[in-house]
């Protein structure tokens, strides 16, 4: 299957007062349709730049980015690329455009000139998909952070996109808001086959993905299934990342109880392994 997002040796640097500051260097990776990929890395590792390269908000200075097979450097294709590759940003307050929830969700398809009845259908369907239908007439500034981010996700879904990129979209939320957003995203990935690229610095979120990409200083340091990536403790230390809490606990316990298995990711697995070890 052709990848839906493909980075071919991509480099990008920002212009600063003293020359250029490289953000992404020789980045190569691909995301297949229907995949749930998490990208982790500490601040300044280039993950947000990578996100903005996906839908042509930034254009690579070297290499190519193909979104749904279209080169983001081609300005004529940007409209279609942005329709298919939706983006949800970090700050919920800075991406909600209209004064009511449903008007905001309609913003994208309005730009596509979708006729009115179809608009109504898309808005209702998208709001139901994230469980915000009941609040469709609410004013965004009266919603919680998690609710606002779900509205933002609905706004992307209404474009009938193929890929959703979440650029640290849970970073400003409280634990409950994070759970809400992650549940919506996982459901959309599983039930609708929506491709997800989740950029995060919460390892617990990354652990839920099919595949994890570890970014470090603008390069891809490691990639693989969460279980394999989180087993590479040296790599994680280089990237300045911590383990998901259950994995970290298992590692500490293993110093005294070497019989604990490796590759523990979730709380359930951790609990089961501890019980097994003490039996």
């Amino acid at each position, binding site marked *: 299957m052709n990848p839906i997002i493909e980075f071919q040796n991509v480099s990008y640097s920002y212009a600063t007062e003293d020359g250029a500051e490289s953000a992404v260097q020789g980045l190569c990776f691909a995301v297949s349709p229907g995949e749930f990929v998490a990208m982790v890395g500490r601040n300044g590792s280039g993950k947000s730049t990578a996100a903005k390269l996906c839908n042509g908000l930034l254009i690579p200075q070297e290499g190519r980015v193909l979104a749904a097979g279209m080169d983001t450097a081609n300005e004529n294709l940007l*409209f279609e690329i942005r329709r298919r590759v939706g983006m949800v940003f970090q700050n919920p307050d800075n991406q909600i455009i209209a004064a009511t929830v449903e*008007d905001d969700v309609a913003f994208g398809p309005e730009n596509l000139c979708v006729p009115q009845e179809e608009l109504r259908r898309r808005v209702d369907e998208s709001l139901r998909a994230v469980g915000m239908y009941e609040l469709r007439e609410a004013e965004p500034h009266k919603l919680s952070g998690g609710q606002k981010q779900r509205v933002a996700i609905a706004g992307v879904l209404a474009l009938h996109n193929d890929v959703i990129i979440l650029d640290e979209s849970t970073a400003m939320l409280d634990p409950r808001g994070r759970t809400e957003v992650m549940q919506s995203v996982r459901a959309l990935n599983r039930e609708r086959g929506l491709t997800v690229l989740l950029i995060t610095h919460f390892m617990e979120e990354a652990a839920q993905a099919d595949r994890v990409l570890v970014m470090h200083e603008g390069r891809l340091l490691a990639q693989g299934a969460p279980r394999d990536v989180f087993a590479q403790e040296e790599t994680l230390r280089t990237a300045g990342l911590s383990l998901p809490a259950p994995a970290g606990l298992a590692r500490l316990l293993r110093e005294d109880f070497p019989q604990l298995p490796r590759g523990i990711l979730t709380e359930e697995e951790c609990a089961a392994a501890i019980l097994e070890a003490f039996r």
Partner: protein
Amino acid sequence: MIKGITIGQYFAGRSPLHRMDARMKIVLTLAYMVVIFLCKNFWALGCTALAAVLCAALSGVPAKMILRSMRPVLILVLFTGVLNVFYTNGPNTHIWFQYELWRVTLKITREGVFTAMFTTIRILCLIAVSSLLTYTTTPSMLTTAMERLLLPLAKLKVPVAVFAMMMTLALRFVPTLIEETERIMNAQKSRGANLETGSLLQRVRAFVPVLVPLFVSAFRRAAELASAMESRCYTGEGPRTSLKQLRLRPWDFGWLAGTVLLTAGIVALNHFFRAVI
């Protein structure tokens, strides 16, 4: 405390006024403003004022709310009223009362009193009707209706859609920026800034450390917002559709007919009764 703020003064309801097409509401409000200035005698003025009262009653908006919207103009009304009473002069004025105060003659004329009453009633009716418009229409609906009404100007290369988008964004961001202001004020206060006491000049000066971060953050927001809008296929040009449904229904034409009837009635009353102003 600011969290609960609502922009505009929309009063939710399902009255006939609420259900009227917003474009029709705007047009008829403008028409009413013209009609009220056509009135030449008390019969005509009374009819027009009665129409406003009827609309207010139909809207289901509490009278208290409508009266409250008149409060800011009360001083203006009193001022113009007093001026009109004393300063209406002319060859054919009927003097009701005259008093010599030093060298100034204070004269109260019949025409002066009538003019004062007319102006007062006119201003109050204008306020009542225009506040009814905003009480019965959501701000976003108003913006949409304005955009549609001004659409013919787009042919003259006036960027109507862009202005409408600016209005929408302004409506959306006012509460957010108010929240932000409060946050910055608290931040500065917690570092010892004194924003509440001192002379006016001192307080204005104390507000600078609030305004600067507010502007910086507003610009940052604007940049992020632009990315978010672009990501959702906004180009700033080309046609867009709208979720908002504006459809003229038979009832809307009923309202139009009512307004035409009122205008005709006013013209007739002007004709049959003597003009008092």
